């Protein structure tokens, strides 16, 4: 504050107190966001395009308008709170008509979950893990995403390099040779325990 004690003069500015909103100082220091991020558009309102799920790979995007969210009361102990507050979150959607899940993954899911689907073909995910409705909803979405992702992963055939294929073939042949060698040795041992006959 020592610098400020040596100031020489001040210029007066008249401010109309009623229109304080209209007069914004528009102060820009040397560490404004414009200077920190010169190549940025500085816009927090942009909504990016939803990532597409293509080539059988699930992008992780779940369209909120394609699933039905409902809340119910949770189970377990909790007194008045658990009796009155709807904290259990449930999401349901028709699996066969879910366009946002890639086709091969959808088929695999239908087969995997065929005992869990409702009569009309709806798949339901529920959660009452926490005391908060919103956190439970996040949990259901997490469960759903995890399920779809693991199914998509199981469909992916991993690429094996020719060196690995060759190595696996060699190891298999070596194992077979060992087995036959031990078998022959065991056979000789057993034969050696027989009493010798006139023919041999």
């Amino acid at each position, binding site marked *: 504050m020592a610098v*400020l004690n040596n100031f*020489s003069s001040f210029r007066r500015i008249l401010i109309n107190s009623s229109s304080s909103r209209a007069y914004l100082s528009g102060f820009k*220091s040397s*560490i*404004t966001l414009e200077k*920190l991020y010169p190549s940025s558009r500085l816009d927090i*309102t942009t909504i990016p395009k939803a990532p597409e799920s293509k080539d059988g790979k699930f992008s992780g995007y779940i369209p909120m308008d394609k699933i039905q969210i409902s809340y119910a009361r949770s189970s377990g102990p909790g007194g008045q709170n658990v009796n009155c507050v709807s904290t259990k979150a449930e999401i349901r959607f028709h699996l066969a008509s879910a366009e946002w899940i890639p086709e091969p993954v959808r088929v695999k899911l239908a087969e995997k979950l065929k005992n869990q689907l409702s009569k009309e073909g709806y798949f339901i995910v529920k959660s009452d893990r926490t005391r908060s409705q*919103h956190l439970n909803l996040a949990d259901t979405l997490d469960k759903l995403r995890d399920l779809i992702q693991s199914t998509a992963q199981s469909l992916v055939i991993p690429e094996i390099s020719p060196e690995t294929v060759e190595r696996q073939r060699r190891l298999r042949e070596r194992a077979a040779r060992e087995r036959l060698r031990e078998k022959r040795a065991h056979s000789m041992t057993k034969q050696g325990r027989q009493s010798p006959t006139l023919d041999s």
Partner: protein
Amino acid sequence: MKSNPKAYKQPKRGRGIYGGGKHGAGNKGSGQRQNFMRLGYETGNNPFYLRVPKEPYYKGHHLKREYPPISLLQLQTMIDTGRVDPSKPLDLVALCNSKLFLLSPLEKQFGFQLTDEGLDNFKGKVNIEVQHASEQVIAAIERNGGVITTAFYDPVSLLAMRDPMKFFISGIPIPKRQTPPEDAIEYYTDPRNRGYLADPDLVALERFKLAQKYGYELPDLKNDPELAMLLERKDPRQIFYGLNPGWVVNLKDKKIFEPEDEKLLEYYKT
């Protein structure tokens, strides 16, 4: 002027046949020869102060920052009862002006944190600036079409902000806000925390990701009639909305003064 006789004990002076002589040191020995053993010495065995290990319970406690909590429930109540005006941007100044919360910067309090109590029933649409907020709180604010920012204020700025009227009356020029310390820079430059020093484009991406995580449609702020209010932000060196560092506010004459000297202008601008 004398206190009452029982107020204090008279010192006992070492003088005369019964009081004086040996300076209270007794006869011979290490005591009279003033050759005492050091404090804690136990005549050779391993002393207590070396035997027992110390537990650093309070190590660095004077360096730890505190953020007194404000729950979403309290915030909703304030909005509903009119203690706070959601049609203007809410920051530490607005929260202190409600006179419901008091900040003690001298007790290592660096601002307020927004906690998640009342998360499910929060319905307010606000442009709020706090010093710390967890992910679910950020989701709750953004779900209702609001904007949340986390910003750092140094103790000098906080002393000005917690009672602006008193500060303006003092006639001190508005200080410039300091940048966060090293251990806080990472927090305030992270778009996930909606830091005031984070890239707004990355913040927009994180808003989208959070909406996907917590299961709500991200409200399109561009079509909002209150867009200008929601996007209003302070410069990283600014303390009050609409007031620059270096200005002196005269409440009585309703005038604001700004410095003319080049060096001062340079100081406040950097």
